């Protein structure tokens, strides 16, 4: 218990000292995860909506597959991306291994299934409610998927936030494809893993506290924006 209190203290001390290294690591964590989630949303939102609304053979299997992919282990995704980007691999010429770009790719792959699967469920529920009315107005699936995405925007904001939570908190994927290189690819989670392996548990917990506070801040800000918008749109 005293460890946890001292962790809070350590966390506050780290932030108050305005340690440049710490802020660089925080900045990189945010950059990688935000970019990954933005890309994943751009892919996953339309994908989920399309699966929800269009009829095609194997639709049920696709939905089940997306659901299952939500449980992808980050370390496995990291391994697969590493094998692709490795110089001995098919995309080695891109020279992306051990860069933040590789980390963004890996996290994006982790988050797309979450966004797509949850979007599919939300949009499917709405489609059930709206289908008759929308079709009556002349909006078939081709139009409806966009309409429903916008109508479900508050639920989907939470879905994207869930994706962000997954990205900012994972260590398996970014460790393998990033290499935890000092000043280059070290993010909060890999820094915590490093300090733990060095036995500096107090610092590790302190960093962990900072990371949790970061997550809280992002999700709190998102909630505030959502509440205001929801108050207006009903």
């Amino acid at each position: 218990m005293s460890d946890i209190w001292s962790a809070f203290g350590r966390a506050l001390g780290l932030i108050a000292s305005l340690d440049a290294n710490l802020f660089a690591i925080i900045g990189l964590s945010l950059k990688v995860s935000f970019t990954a989630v933005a890309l994943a949303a751009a892919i996953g939102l339309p994908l989920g909506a399309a699966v929800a609304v269009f009829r095609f053979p194997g639709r049920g299997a696709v939905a089940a597959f997306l659901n299952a992919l939500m449980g992808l282990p980050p370390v496995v995704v990291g391994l697969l991306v590493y094998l692709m980007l490795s110089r001995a691999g098919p995309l080695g010429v891109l020279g992306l291994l051990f860069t933040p770009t590789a980390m963004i790719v890996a996290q994006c792959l982790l988050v797309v299934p979450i966004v797509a699967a949850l979007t599919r469920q939300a949009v499917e529920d709405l489609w059930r409610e709206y289908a008759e009315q929308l079709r009556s107005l002349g909006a078939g699936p081709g139009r409806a998927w966009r309409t429903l995405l916008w109508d479900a925007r508050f639920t989907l904001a939470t879905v994207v936030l869930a994706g962000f939570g997954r990205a900012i908190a994972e260590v398996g994927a970014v460790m393998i494809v990033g290499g935890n290189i000092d000043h280059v690819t070290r993010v909060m989670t890999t820094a915590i893993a490093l300090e733990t392996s060095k036995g500096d548990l107090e610092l590790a917990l302190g960093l962990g506290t900072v990371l949790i506070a970061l997550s809280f801040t992002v999700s709190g800000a998102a909630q505030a924006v959502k509440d205001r918008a929801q108050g207006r749109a009903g």
Partner: protein
Amino acid sequence: MRAVASILPLVLDNVVFAVGAARLIDGLSFTLDRGPRTVILGPNGAGKSLTLRLCHGLIAPGAGRLTWRGDGGAVSPARRQAMVFQSPVMLRRSALANVVYGLAVNGVARRRRRDLAMAALDRVGLANLAERSARALSTGEQQRLALARAWALRPEVLFLDEPTANLDPAATRAVEAIIDAVHGSGTKIVMTTHDLAQARRLADEVLFLHHGRLVERAPAEAFFNRPVSPEARAFIKGELLW
């Protein structure tokens, strides 16, 4: 304004709709044409809502044919007809935006949409609520909004499925007044109701359904005062039909 060919009359020829072994619509044949406000009456489970949905094109008949004029037999729901449902479905946006959506889907030019939508809202008495969130409106207001949305499309036929079943008397009166106005602007009204009094108020002609079949069809005055079929007589008297 260029003359557009009318989509009426609508001809139903022995239309059947079955779910499993049960024939919910059992050989329906009739013609709908311009002019009279048509009310489809019948007890619950008679197939009134199904009939509307078949006419509007939301579901396809299992057997039989449904033909709009000047058309090979395939009907697309959005073509010059609109429908108002018992429970209005409103998008999560303002009242005005809901009407604009209908216009946008039907290809109205962007610069005209807002004005047309405001005019429609005005006609149903919701102009002052244009920027309000549609979901925040009362059920009666939402139903009027649904009417505005449908009317803005200038449909030739307006189907209404029990439009006031969920509304209080004041809202019902407002909606009936709007239906009247829509009819007055030249749109064919086809409406279902289980409310006899409403039917008396609104109908010019009555189609009486029972067990998915058309049992009687007559001008309103004749139907209510001199019903021919025993089922119709029983229904008007207020007895339960099964």
